[in-house]
């Protein structure tokens, strides 16, 4: 009985159903997100738990698919983990007979699945753990220096934004904006749009507040600082890259043996 349950949990048939379900939920979610952006926009700047409390629970008719998607992806994670353990145990026991090269080629799909599992875990960690600043909690305003306190009683003084503008065909549009931050220890650092600053476990991003396309020419806008500590980010990026390399290796090996 236990063996049958394990085979079911580690089976490709279950993977197939879970993948179909997650595809359907992603497409459904995309349609809801498109029609109700105001509800889903805060999700980018809030932990899932806070968002579910403030936005999700009150709009269940539009957000029902998100907990369901999280559940299906969680089950897919379980299915992937079982599949990894199952295949790994099988090939490990046969490694002396097959030789190291064949063993490595045989466990490549298992490693690809491990990467996928870690990417999923990374996304869950990114959405559920760490710190995310709220909308306009940390602001850099023209002509002002603002003082803020980060979690852990870390002080920072945020200077005014200074912007460069395009000349020629896009004259007056913003080329880049930067702000100087002075941390409590006296350390001075600069943050620019799309060039985040990593400091003391925090990622600090600078972003133009409001609608970036609608600013008046040559006007220095108010900027927002997005402050985050995200434990999942590194896992997602690294494992996605490794997954691609392993996929290439696997199919190159398969072609070579054909």
């Amino acid at each position, binding site marked *: 009985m236990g063996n049958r349950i394990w085979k079911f949990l580690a089976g490709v048939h279950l993977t*197939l159903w879970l993948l179909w379900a997650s*595809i359907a939920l992603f497409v459904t979610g995309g349609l809801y997100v498109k029609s109700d952006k105001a509800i*889903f926009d805060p999700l980018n700047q809030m932990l899932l738990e806070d968002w579910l409390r403030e936005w999700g629970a009150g709009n269940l008719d539009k957000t029902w698919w998100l907990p369901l998607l999280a559940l299906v992806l969680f089950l897919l994670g379980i299915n992937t983990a079982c599949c990894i353990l199952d295949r790994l145990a099988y090939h490990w026991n046969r490694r002396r007979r097959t030789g190291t090269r064949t063993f490595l080629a045989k466990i490549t799909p298992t490693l690809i699945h491990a990467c996928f599992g870690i990417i999923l875990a990374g996304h869950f960690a990114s959405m559920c753990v760490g710190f995310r600043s709220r909308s306009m909690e940390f602001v850099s305003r023209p002509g002002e220096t603002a003082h803020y306190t980060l979690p852990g009683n870390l002080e920072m003084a945020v200077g005014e934004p200074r912007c460069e503008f395009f000349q020629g065909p896009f004259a007056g549009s913003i*080329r880049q904006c930067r702000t100087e931050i002075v941390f409590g220890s006296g350390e001075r650092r600069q943050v620019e749009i799309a060039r985040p600053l990593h400091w003391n476990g925090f990622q600090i991003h600078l*972003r*133009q507040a409001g609608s970036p396309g609608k600013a008046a020419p040559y006007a220095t806008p108010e900027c927002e600082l997005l402050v*985050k500590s995200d434990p999942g980010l590194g896992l997602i990026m690294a494992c996605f890259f490794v997954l691609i390399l392993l996929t290439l290796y696997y199919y190159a090996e398969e072609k070579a043996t054909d």
Partner: protein
Amino acid sequence: MTEPNAIPYWAQYAAAAAFGLSALACRPGRLKAAGPFLLLAGLLLQSWFLLGLGRSSGMFLPNTIVSLEVFLPWALAALALVHRACSDRKEAAHTAVILIFAVALLTTLQTRVLAAQGSLVYPPGPMHPAGWVTTFFFTESMAYAAFFLACWFALGHLRRRNLPHTFHNYLILSFVLFSLSQVLGAVWSYLGWAVPFHLSSDRHYNSAAFWLFLALYLHLKFLPGWPAPRRARLVAIAFIPVLYFRYLAYFLGKWTS
């Protein structure tokens, strides 16, 4: 901000015509030998048009070249030429030019609509770092092009049952390129919006669904109930939702806004 007069539309029309003539070469006749040269001519003309489009604002914007749907015929033609050069079944590989011609015609019409709206060139800005944006759209478009070719050859396999490896290999290429594009896109999204997956953009959800579909397909080969013809049918059917969610819905949204 745009200067539509500077865009060499003639090159786009000529490229579509070259693809059309190359498609005629799929049938037996005098044009047959000219088929690959016409395909190459179409690719070069499309390249000229895209370069003109990238320079049309008076400032070279590489992301404009690769981010519009009009890059798709170029991507398809480039893949088809490489495939034709490497394949030992050149005639079967060359049939892809029919798909390229159809896509070239549709994107030519779409270019006129976007030009009339003044939305062909997206103004540059700090949220769109040219390197990340360009490489993201390039790999993403190449991945979709590989997928559409997989759909084409899956249809071919359903008709003649002789191209199981061709559509399967294109699907693998699409998976690798699309995975790469998702890494590049995640970096861009992180730099610009502080999140690797933008949770309020429907485009990201559709991309996740597409990536999972490719992953699902790769698993089917290991299941006994999924021989090549059944997998080919699934891939051929997937053409319609993928085309709709990635290209048509996006374009219709722009058109009606």
